[in-house]
C-alpha cells in the first residue's frame, strides 16, 4: 500500500516534469469556427506548447454579410434594420449610433422626449448586454450555465420591455432619424419601475454569489492582463479599456442625447485583468440603473419624432457619430453624395478592435486562460464581421 503510494509519487514527479518540459512539438489547435465558446462563428488559431499558448491568431470573416456595401444601395431609413444585425446583442445602441450619424448629416434636431427615450433604451440595452456578457464569461470560466441563466432573467425582462415598445426583442429597429419610431406604451413605465425596484436585489445576489467565489478569482485574477498604455495604443474602448484604469467613457467625454444632464459615474478597474472587466461591467449595470431612474423621473412630454422626410437627401458631406455601446466606442461614418443612399457607410465596431488585444493578452497563459480572456472581452461576431 505505502509502496504503491510512493511509486505513484515517483511517477507523478516524472509526469509533471514531462508535461512541463519541451519534449513535445507545438500543437496548433483551431478553436472554432465551430466551438462552444467562440460566441459565434469565429476562429482562434492557437499554437500550444503543452497547455501554454505561444501564439494566437484570429481568423475572422465567417459571418461577413457585406453590410457596409449593401447599405450603399438603401436609403438612410432603410439602413436602420442593418444596424440591428451588426451587434445583435445591443441593437438599440447600434440604431442610436447610426441615427446620430444620419442626423448629423441631415442636420436634424431631435425632440427632448426622443432623446430621453433613446437614453432609456440605450441604458436598458446596456443592462441586457452586460447580463449576457457576464453570464457567458462565467460560463467560459466553466460554470455549468447557472450564473448565465440567473442573469438571463434580467435580460429577459429588458427584452420584454423592448417587445412591449417596438414589437421586437432582439432586432429592435426602434430608433429613427430624428427620434424614435413609437412613443412609449402605457404599460412600459410601470414595468420599468418594477424592474428598477427589483434589480438592486438581483445585483446584490450576484455579488454575494459570485464576487467572493474563490474559483472565479483563481480563474480570472491576473489573467489576460493588459496595461493602460497598451490598451490605449491598441485603441481599445469600453469595459476592456476601463478595466485597465483609464476613465474613458463617451457618455462623459463626448456626451450625446443629453447624457450630460444625468448624474452617473464611470467605474474603472485597476489591474486590467479579466476579473476587473467583469467587475467593471457589474458596476456599470448599477450606474445604468441610476441613469434609468433619472430618465424615468425627468421624462419630458412632447413629440418623439422630428419631421424628417422618409427619403431624405442630405447635402454632400460626411459625418461621424459615436456612442458608448456596451462593448465600447461604436461609431458610424457616413458619406453622402447628395443621393438618397449613403455613398459610404462604415462602422467602427468595438468588438473587432477590442479583439485585436486578445493575442497580447493570451500569449503566455494557458489554453483555458485564453478562453476566459476571450469571454471577458465580450465579442459579438456579427459586429466583427458585419
Amino acid at each position: 500500500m505505502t509502496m504503491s503510494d510512493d511509486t505513484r509519487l515517483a511517477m507523478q514527479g516524472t509526469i509533471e516534469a514531462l508535461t512541463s518540459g519541451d519534449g513535445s512539438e507545438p500543437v496548433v489547435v483551431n478553436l472554432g469556427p465551430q466551438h462552444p465558446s467562440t460566441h459565434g462563428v469565429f476562429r482562434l488559431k492557437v499554437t500550444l506548447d503543452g497547455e501554454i499558448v505561444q501564439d494566437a491568431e484570429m481568423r475572422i470573416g465567417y459571418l461577413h454579410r457585406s453590410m457596409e456595401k449593401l447599405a450603399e444601395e438603401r436609403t438612410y431609413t432603410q439602413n436602420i434594420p442593418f444596424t440591428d444585425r451588426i451587434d445583435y446583442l445591443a441593437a438599440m445602441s447600434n440604431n442610436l449610433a447610426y441615427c446620430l450619424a444620419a442626423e448629423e448629416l441631415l442636420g436634424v434636431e431631435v425632440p427632448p422626449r426622443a432623446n430621453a427615450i433613446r437614453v432609456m433604451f440605450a441604458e436598458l440595452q446596456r443592462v441586457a448586454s452586460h447580463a449576457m456578457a457576464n453570464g457567458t464569461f462565467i460560463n467560459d470560466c466553466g460554470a455549468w450555465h447557472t450564473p448565465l441563466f440567473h442573469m438571463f432573467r434580467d435580460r429577459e425582462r429588458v427584452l420584454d420591455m423592448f417587445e412591449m415598445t417596438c414589437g421586437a426583442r432582439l432586432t429592435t429597429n426602434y430608433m429613427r432619424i430624428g427620434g424614435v419610431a413609437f412613443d412609449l406604451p402605457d404599460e412600459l413605465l410601470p414595468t420599468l419601475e418594477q424592474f428598477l425596484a427589483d434589480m438592486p436585489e438581483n445585483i446584490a445576489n450576484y455579488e454575494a454569489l459570485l464576487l467572493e467565489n474563490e474559483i472565479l478569482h483563481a480563474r480570472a485574477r491576473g489573467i489576460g492582463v493588459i496595461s493602460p498604455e497598451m490598451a490605449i495604443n491598441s485603441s481599445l474602448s469600453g469595459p476592456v479599456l476601463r478595466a485597465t484604469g483609464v476613465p474613458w467613457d463617451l457618455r462623459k467625454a463626448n456626451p450625446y442625447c443629453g447624457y450630460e444632464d444625468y448624474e452617473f459615474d464611470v467605474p474603472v478597474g485597476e489591474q486590467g485583468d479579466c476579473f476587473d472587466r467583469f467587475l467593471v461591467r457589474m458596476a456599470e449595470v448599477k450606474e445604468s440603473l441610476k441613469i434609468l431612474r433619472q430618465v424615468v423621473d425627468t421624462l419630458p412630454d412632447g413629440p418623439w419624432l422630428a419631421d424628417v422626410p422618409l427619403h431624405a437627401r442630405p447635402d454632400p458631406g460626411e459625418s461621424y457619430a459615436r456612442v458608448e455601446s456596451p462593448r465600447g466606442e461604436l461609431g458610424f461614418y457616413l458619406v453622402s453624395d447628395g443621393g438618397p443612399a449613403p455613398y459610404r457607410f462604415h462602422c467602427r465596431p468595438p468588438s473587432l478592435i477590442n479583439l485585436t488585444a486578445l493575442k497580447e493578452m493570451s500569449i503566455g497563459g494557458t489554453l483555458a486562460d485564453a478562453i476566459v480572456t476571450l469571454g471577458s472581452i465580450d465579442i459579438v461576431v456579427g459586429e466583427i464581421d458585419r
Partner: protein
Amino acid sequence: MSDFGFHLAFWSLAAMTLGGASMIMISRNLIHAVIWLVMSMLGVAGLYLTLSADFIAVVQVLIYVGAISVLMLFAIMLTPRAERDNSQNMKTGGPAALVVILVMISTLWVAIDTDWGAVREAALTEQARLIGESLIKHYILPFEIGAVLLTAALVGAIALARQDDEDAAVHASSLQAELEGDASVDPVDVVDPPIPSDGEAGS
C-alpha cells in the same frame, strides 16, 4: 473451484497473456503495443487470482494497468509521431532470436524436468495483513531500502526529465524569435504588461 472452471480460467488467461505479449512483438504502433501490454498484464493478474494471490493480483492491476502503462503512454505522447514506430527491429535480430531460443529451451527444460516437490496446501488467507506484517517485521531493511530506492527514483526521474531553467529560457526565446519572425519594429513604445510569473499563475 471445480476443475472445469479452473481449466477454463487458466487456459483463457494463458492465451490472453501470451497472445498479448506476442502482439507486442508484431504490432507496428507503439501505442498499440502498450495496449497489448495492458492485456497481457491483465492476464497475469488473472493468473495470480487462479493462484489465490488476490492481494498481488489487485496490486498488479493497480500498478501496471493503472500506473505504468499510463506512464508509458504519457512518455510516448511526449515524443513526436515519428518515434512511435515499433516496427523497426535491431539488425542483430538473428543472434537475439538464437539466444532467446536457447534461453527458452533451457528454462523450459528446467521447468519441466525438475521435480519441484510441489505441495498443494491451503492458500494463504488474509494475505494483505500477512504481507504487511512481514514487511515491517522480517523484511524491514529491504522495505526501507525499497523506500529509499523509490525516493531516489522520484528525485532522479524529476532531475532527468526536468529541463534546466537556462535551457528553458533559451528555448523560449528561440521560439519567440521564431514566432515573431523578423518584425523588429515594435509598434508601441510602452512598458510590458505584467505577465504573471509561474508562481502567481499557478494554484
